[in-house]
């Protein structure tokens, strides 16, 4: 019998981190304000009290320092899990992530693994000030040597954080912060999917909606509205952004012939663009319409009062669905 518990993603991540800390003494959590405070989003709440200040470390306020020292710790056999406080604060660590962390295994000819996880609360919908609502995942998906994932549900968050920590490769773990608090079912007994598998979140036959992170709930909402209008939409949750598990995407595209890819991130050179190009290459003869993208705009993430216009919502997705069906 599986043990099923209803909890928000924030608690599921906390439980997943606790399980990882308990399972392997080489697992360390490092980040700004993650100790007594439990992180600004309280994801690590109670963990320092339980595992001590060495296993759950409040670091100096220096993102490059966090990732750079995590690399040294990984060389020593540790499995550091770094928390970057907000999406827009990851850039000071960019060199250490893309030039150092991502390349160590390759430069060492495979004799050294880099089991480092970098947790990044990301995305909008929280009405915050600048640098606090961004979606920078494409930068990292573009870099060889990194794995990039993003859960959309509490269940995935619980299992994927543990699987990311078990991975011997560096994993950028993007947490959709707007989804931290809605509750969902978590199967504490077994994981149904691997870290890099995509998932059909809702079956349908007329159009395929693809997204990751917080966008999955928007797509499900759009699919529900579409159903009321007699349109059967299939929703595919990417879960993994690098590598992308194209099997379920291609199966769905070949079945429906119409695809909309949605993302909070700006459109130019984005993950959605990559998916659109790949589906066009590999499912060309099955497509009835071009793959359409629904994205944030190619502007800075706007002032919070305008974020509702910037972020794709169900209406923007449905507008794209209408256009796809009109071909």
């Amino acid at each position, binding site marked *: 019998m599986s043990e099923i518990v209803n909890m928000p993603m924030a608690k599921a991540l906390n439980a997943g981190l606790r399980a990882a800390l308990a399972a392997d003494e080489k697992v360390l959590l490092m980040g700004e304000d993650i100790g007594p405070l439990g992180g600004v989003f309280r994801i690590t709440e109670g963990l320092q009290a339980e595992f001590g200040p060495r296993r759950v470390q409040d670091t100096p306020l220096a993102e*490059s320092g966090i990732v750079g020292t995590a690399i040294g710790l990984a060389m020593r056999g540790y499995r550091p899990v770094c928390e970057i406080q907000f999406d827009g604060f990851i850039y000071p660590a960019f060199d250490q992530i893309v030039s150092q962390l991502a390349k160590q295994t390759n430069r*060492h*000819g495979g004799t*050294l693994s880099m089991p480092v996880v970098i947790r990044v609360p990301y995305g909008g919908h929280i009405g915050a000030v600048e640098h606090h609502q961004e979606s920078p995942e494409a930068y990292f998906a573009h870099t060889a040597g990194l794995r990039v994932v993003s859960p959309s549900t509490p269940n995935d968050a619980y299992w994927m954080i543990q699987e990311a920590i078990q991975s011997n490769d560096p994993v950028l773990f993007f947490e959709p912060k707007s989804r931290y608090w809605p509750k969902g079912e978590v199967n504490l007994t077994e994981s149904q999917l691997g870290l890099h598998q995509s998932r059909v979140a809702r079956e349908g036959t007329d159009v395929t909606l693809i997204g990751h992170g917080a966008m999955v709930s928007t797509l499900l909402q759009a699919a529900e509205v579409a159903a009321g209008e007699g349109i059967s939409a299939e929703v595919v949750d990417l879960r993994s952004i690098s590598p992308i598990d194209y099997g379920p995407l291609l199966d769905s595209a070949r079945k429906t012939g119409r695809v909309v890819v949605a993302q909070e991130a700006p459109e130019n050179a984005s993950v959605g663009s990559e998916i659109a190009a790949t589906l066009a290459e590999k499912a060309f003869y099955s497509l009835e319409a071009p793959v359409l993208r629904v994205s944030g705009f190619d502007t800075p993430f706007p002032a919070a009062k305008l974020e509702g216009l910037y972020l794709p919502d169900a209406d923007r997705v449905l507008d794209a669905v209408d256009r796809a069906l009109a071909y």
Partner: protein
Amino acid sequence: MTLHTEQAPEPVRFLSADGTFAPTPAAEPFLARLDSLTDAHHERFYRDMVSVRAFDREATNLQRQGEMALFPPSEGQEGAQVGSAHAARPQDHIFPSYREHVVGMIRGVDPVNILSLMRGVTLGGWDPTDPKNGNFHLYTLVLGSQTLHATGYAMGQLFDGASGTGNVETDEATIVYFGDGSTSEGDVSEALVFAASHQTPQVFFLQNNQWAISVPVSVQSRTPLYLRGAGFGLPSVQIDGNDVLASYAVTSQFLDEARVGQGPRFIEAMTYRMGAHTTSDDPTKYRTNEERAEWGQRDPIVRFEAYLRARGASESLFTSAAEDAKDLCADVRARTLALEAPDFPTMFEHVYSEEHPRMREQSDWLTRYEASMTEDNR
């Protein structure tokens, strides 16, 4: 406006430029470290400095002959590097920048492996996880990045309980090399912050060779750089980097203090890059002959040779050191020329530790594509 550089007191120095043993006041606290050095140690220091100078010139020639993409020579910095390398104990870990060829050689790295990186046949060159390479980590070409890796590694030594027991024979420490230009990189400051915060068993070894390619150290800092370390709360000293004994004594004492739990330390070794930054550089565009000649008067090898001769070393040491260096160069040349380009599928190997679909797909594709280009398939 002029740049003001606060003068440091006399650095730690045992050997004057002419080779006479004349410790400066700053050297007194480190004097006892020389007691354990035997004639055999002195000979080894000398041979290593002579070897790497010859290696340096051979490698530069190989680059000039089109056999390597690039080479960063270390001529002039042999004293700082040989002394500090011999100060490290076998259990210590060493994070170089990219000019510490002799440090690698002393730790057991085959010099041809260093040149394999410069020849463009690998992105690494040697396996730091193999004990035969003496815990000498890979070169890091982005300036200063390695200081954070070293600090993280030293944090691991600390967390493991591998340092701080008080036993200098077994407690571990880490030493990281970087240069005057790197001190302006944010990562170096962050490494000092983390090291001070955790009190890591670690020595920061700064070789101040006066020039960051074409920019003099006065543009990087208005204060002597050893004060940077002090500003982060690390015991910090400036040494004459062209005195191999000063480099040995201070590094040895600082590493032992760090390993037994007294926290990180900082050394600024004053030295001079006699050659170009790399073979792509032209120092005649930014330095004067006078300056170079002045530093030539303080050469680490000439100085140490005068000291050894005054101590009565036999002539055979000097002739055999020169012969051995020549043999090393011949061997390095022959084996470097034999380094072939790796097979192309290796490009896709070890990008990840675990299976990755894109690596497999792209490797397969390139294999088919290359096969389609062969004579039979045209």
